């Protein structure tokens, strides 16, 4: 079994590595050279139509402000669309279960959540959302919010690669190209694959199944929810969205039926974020730099996975004492997936800002649960969300270069561009805002009645639940320590605002940085310039991410999972 897990891990990392180069080059073709792709014969007409509809605006290069305004306008419109679809679902078609309109604070929370690529779900899909809401309100957002994330990363990379210009690309062109040439065709292929594996795709009402046993006090039948699952599942994974059709997300057999779908889902989550590092390397004309960033991500990913896997494998230290079987911690896990695939899925989904889950993180051991939480708090830069991961990573790269860059005896430069106070202001704004967005509302919740009312486990674990909720919201992850009952007006509103800020407020410094960097001159690289590839750089980057993350969150974590772990091992008490 162990051998099988190791082999699977090897296969996973190996395939990811092999896919990064060709797919990164493909992204370069889509975003930069804007060549025809293999999908052009099919989708070219659609592309032409959209470009024509938008008129001259699509051809024009934009400054970072114009880019940002277009983005904000588009996302706000999308969010309003989702909000009204949810509010009006009772009069809209494709509602075989006759669900009522979604309650306002939940509709706001959900609209914000999907527009922000978070997919935090304070509802159970199968008992709240009509098929129309799922497809038009949510799946549509899954596509475009992912495209927006990729567009922003592409703009930042352009800013880094260009010299002495004021523009960073065109938002509309990026949005259309990515959606049509990357997300749509890949999702269709993925959806078809999922269907072949048994994921359902229909518009039916719940199917009534007769039960063999008569459950006490209930109707002797089970209702099995139906719907267009495969089409939503594909982009949920590919766009690191994570919002499941069903409440059980990827642990539901209709969402994730086989070991193969599980494996492909994991790979698909990392595919675009990983390929973006290759795109970075190609854009800046330094492929080694792209691989260095990829390697730093790989190191962080493997380290996190190892801790989580080991902790879950060991399980509760009380099991042996109680002479229970010590097969590791299986609470909250699908027996179909077991410990390794649950730990792997948890690590991937939290490293990547995806938020799809195939096990319940709330039931992990303290250390096993600490890792997903920490992955989110480190900024989800390990491959990361589509686009947002690379953007965050590049912020860390610039910070690392700035702190250590002086040590080569020059004022800091990143790829030949001087890092000056204006750039540092933007980078620290990003880091500072991410920290505050997590810590401040979590502290508020922890010390107030409405906050504590939502938690299901008290003690340190309750704190972890609240911390996880706000980390997940601010980091646009969307997964939950599900113990928290957050479908209350207070949580809905606060989490919704945090999600929006975590997405769109943080895009401001990223885009501004892109604009700043694009305008800079480039100092040609020489043997005296700061090396952004090789082991030293990888170690430096990994160190910077861990130290900045730990320094920010260690105090809070120490009262949550850390203390919980020591209490479990020390006195065997559980929460």
């Amino acid at each position: 079994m162990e051998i099988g897990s190791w082999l699977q891990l090897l296969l996973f990392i190996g395939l990811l590595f092999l896919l990064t180069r060709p797919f990164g080059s493909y992204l370069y073709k889509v975003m930069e050279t804007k060549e025809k792709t293999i999908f052009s014969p099919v989708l070219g007409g659609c592309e032409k139509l959209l470009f024509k509809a938008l008129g001259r605006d699509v051809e024009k290069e934009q400054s970072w402000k114009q880019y940002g305004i277009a983005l904000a306008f588009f996302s706000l419109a999308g969010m309003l669309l989702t909000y009204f679809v949810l509010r009006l679902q009772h009069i809209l078609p494709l509602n075989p279960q006759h669900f009522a309109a979604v309650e306002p604070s939940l509709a706001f929370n959900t609209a914000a959540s999907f527009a922000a690529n978070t997919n935090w779900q304070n509802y159970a899909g199968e008992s709240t959302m009509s098929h129309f809401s799922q497809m038009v309100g949510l799946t549509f957002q899954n596509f475009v919010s992912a495209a927006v994330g990729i567009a922003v990363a592409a703009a930042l990379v352009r800013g880094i690669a260009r010299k002495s210009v004021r523009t960073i690309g065109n938002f509309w062109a990026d949005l259309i190209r990515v959606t049509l040439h990357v997300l749509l065709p890949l999702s269709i292929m993925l959806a078809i694959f999922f269907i072949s594996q048994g994921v359902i795709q229909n518009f039916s009402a719940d199917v009534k199944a007769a039960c063999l046993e008569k459950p006490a006090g209930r109707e002797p039948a089970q209702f099995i929810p139906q719907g267009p699952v495969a089409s939503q599942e594909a982009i949920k994974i590919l766009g690191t969205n994570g919002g499941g059709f069903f409440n059980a997300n990827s642990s539901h057999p209709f969402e994730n039926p086989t070991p193969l779908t599980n494996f492909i889902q994991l790979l698909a989550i990392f595919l675009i974020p990983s390929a973006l590092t290759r795109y970075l390397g190609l854009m800046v004309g330094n492929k080694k730099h792209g691989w260095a960033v990829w390697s730093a991500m790989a190191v962080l990913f493997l380290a996190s996975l190892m801790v989580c896997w080991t902790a879950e494998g060991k399980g509760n230290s009380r099991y042996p004492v109680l002479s229970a079987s010590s097969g590791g911690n299986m609470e909250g896990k699908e027996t179909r997936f077991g410990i390794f695939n649950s730990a792997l899925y948890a690590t991937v989904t939290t490293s990547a800002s995806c938020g799809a889950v195939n096990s319940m993180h709330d039931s992990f051991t303290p250390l096993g649960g600490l890792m997903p939480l920490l992955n989110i708090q480190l900024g989800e830069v390990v491959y990361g969300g589509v686009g947002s991961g690379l953007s965050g990573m590049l912020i860390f790269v610039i910070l690392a270069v700035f702190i250590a860059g002086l040590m080569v005896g020059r004022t800091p430069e990143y790829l030949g561009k001087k890092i000056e106070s204006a750039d540092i202001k933007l980078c620290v704004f990003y880091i500072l805002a991410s920290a505050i967005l997590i810590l401040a509302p979590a502290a508020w919740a922890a010390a107030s009645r409405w906050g504590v009312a939502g938690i299901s486990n008290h003690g340190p674990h309750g704190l972890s639940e609240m911390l996880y909720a706000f980390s997940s919201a601010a980091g646009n992850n969307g997964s939950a320590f599900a113990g928290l009952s957050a479908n209350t007006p207070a949580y809905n509103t606060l989490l919704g605002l945090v999600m929006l800020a975590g997405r769109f407020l943080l895009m401001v410094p990223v885009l501004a940085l892109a604009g700043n960097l694009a305008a800079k001159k480039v100092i040609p690289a020489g043997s005296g310039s700061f090396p952004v590839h090789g082991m030293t750089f990888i170690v430096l980057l990994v160190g910077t991410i861990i130290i900045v993350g730990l320094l920010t969150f260690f105090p809070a974590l120490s009262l949550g999972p850390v203390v919980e772990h020591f209490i479990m091992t020390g006195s065997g008490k559980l929460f």
Partner: protein
Amino acid sequence: MRTAATSIFQKDILKQAVMDAVKKLDPRSLARNPVMFVTECCALLTTAALFQKSSGEPRGFIIQISLWLWFTVLFANFAEAVAEGRGKAQADSLRKTRSHTTANRMQPGQENAPVPAEALRKNDIVAVSAGETVPADGEVISGIATVDESAITGESAPVIRESGGDRSAVTGGTKVLSDKIIVRVTANPGESFLDRMISLVEGANRQKTPNEIALTILLSALSVIFLVAIFTLKFFGIYSGAWFSITVLVSLLVCLLPTTIGGLLSAIGIAGIDRLVQKNVLAMSGRAVEAAGDIDVLLLDKTGTITLGDRQAVRFIPAPGITVGTLADIAQLASLSDETPEGRSIVILAKKHGLRGRSIAEIPDARFVSFSAQTRMSGIDIGLHQFRKGAPDAIAAFAAIEFPQEMKRVIEEISREGGTALAVAEKEEALGVIHLKDIVKGGLRDRFIRLRAMGIKTIMITGDNRLTAATIAREAGVDDFLAEARPEDKMALIRKEQRNGYLVAMTGDGTNDAPALAQADVGVAMNTGTQAAKEAGNMVDLDSNPTKLIEIIETGKQMLMTRGALTTFSIANDVAKYFAILPAMLIVLFPEIAPLNIMKLGSPLSAILSAVVFNAMIIILLIPLALKGVKFKPMKAMALLRRNLVIYGLGGLAIPFAGIKIIDIVVNFFHLT
């Protein structure tokens, strides 16, 4: 000016620094440094906590924490004061030279009137005679004099100052030793070179450099992050049922704040300028020192910088049928009256061929023909012999012969290699050729190799033709050269390199260098140069040694490295401090957390106190490093980074674990908590 390498801790400087450190506690002055400002606020908070009724911890503990927090601020102030103190000491010695000079002001149509030097204004004309002190900065408009500039440069040998040309600038405070000069004043009182030097070394109106500003922003943001982390910890504590006192929270905060780099940042900057002063270079701003570290391209004048300045004879090549000895003998005779450096070098080279030195007086019946630019030859007539040496065509004309084929070939070859060929002949007989060439200064090759290792490109500028330039460039080991350069070419070259994104440094002394000096990112003017050159550059080398540029770059790099090293060290330190303080904070409520106390510190209170003490002490311990700068070795950026990351990154992670543990042992030994 030249101070015998000031030791870092001089007694009087230290005494003054202690007092200044206390004065600098004034929050208004501390507000310039956000990290230390927050630290001071924290110290105030814990001091106030002393007067709380029930503060949780024993009073003795709070007193000690407060004291050490105050010490943290004081130590940082002290570091800055020591750095400033060294400059102040130098400024004081400069001020002494300015004492009350009287000037002879000349006014048209009036008698010369003695006025105090302070009364002089720009464009006033003064006469300065032997024995008098030059009253103000100015330009010699007539006369020539030897001037003792040791007050400024520390160089005791007098220098010549004369009107016109590139040696016309005089500096206030220097002393005329001979003759009399008429000087036009070029600076108002308070704006003179000396005044600027004083305010520079004193750091009176020190501006933060761009990189310092960026670093301060980063440090401030880190401080805010820690403030948020600690502030929210209070609330998480409320949830967990833990009550954290102000003293404990503030201790944790101060330990996390980047106090080490925050406290030493300005000292590093001041010390950087100061180290240049020690090398007799005056940087007009910290920005210039910082730019020096970033230099990518170095423009060096050939003459005087790369070569000795004069061509030297290196070889005698006799004509067919003549021995080397004979040629050397006659060449020496013909050069005895040639006072140019070239002529003298021929005499010296001849000595190496076994000839003793001869003087003109030894040869009584000879008639000497001295060198002139018109004839382009020198020589000697002894009896019937008329020996001449000089430019080949001039000699051929004089001797009225055509040189033998062999000799012509040699002459051609020498010029092809970039050397100068001089012919030696008697009337109607060619005797041979003297090979003269530029001599590259000793040790330069190695320095250029070091520069290349640092990724810096060297470009030689010369008026010579391409052939000559290429030969010397190869010999000196520069990366590139600009031949047949006119002043405007130099400017164009700087612009071109800057357009490519490079930062350019150059030295210059002449008035026609001024535009290029101003254009260059680092322009080092020679102190012997004109006023215009000195105004245009952003550094002045008092020794007027063009190769100093290399040291200037190294100093700039060293300053930046020191800043980076201490920042990395400071941030890496925080990991250990968490492991000291957090378990101490939680252990009362959660005894199970004991394994997190990996340093096995004695008690919760001693752990917190030890971390705070370490945090303060490390500032004092690192002052020498901040002032001297980290060790600089020219090597590639990759190797430098690896080396410094290991020392200051890993070191920064490990050292505090040991340091806090040791302090904790001491604290527990004396039962301080």
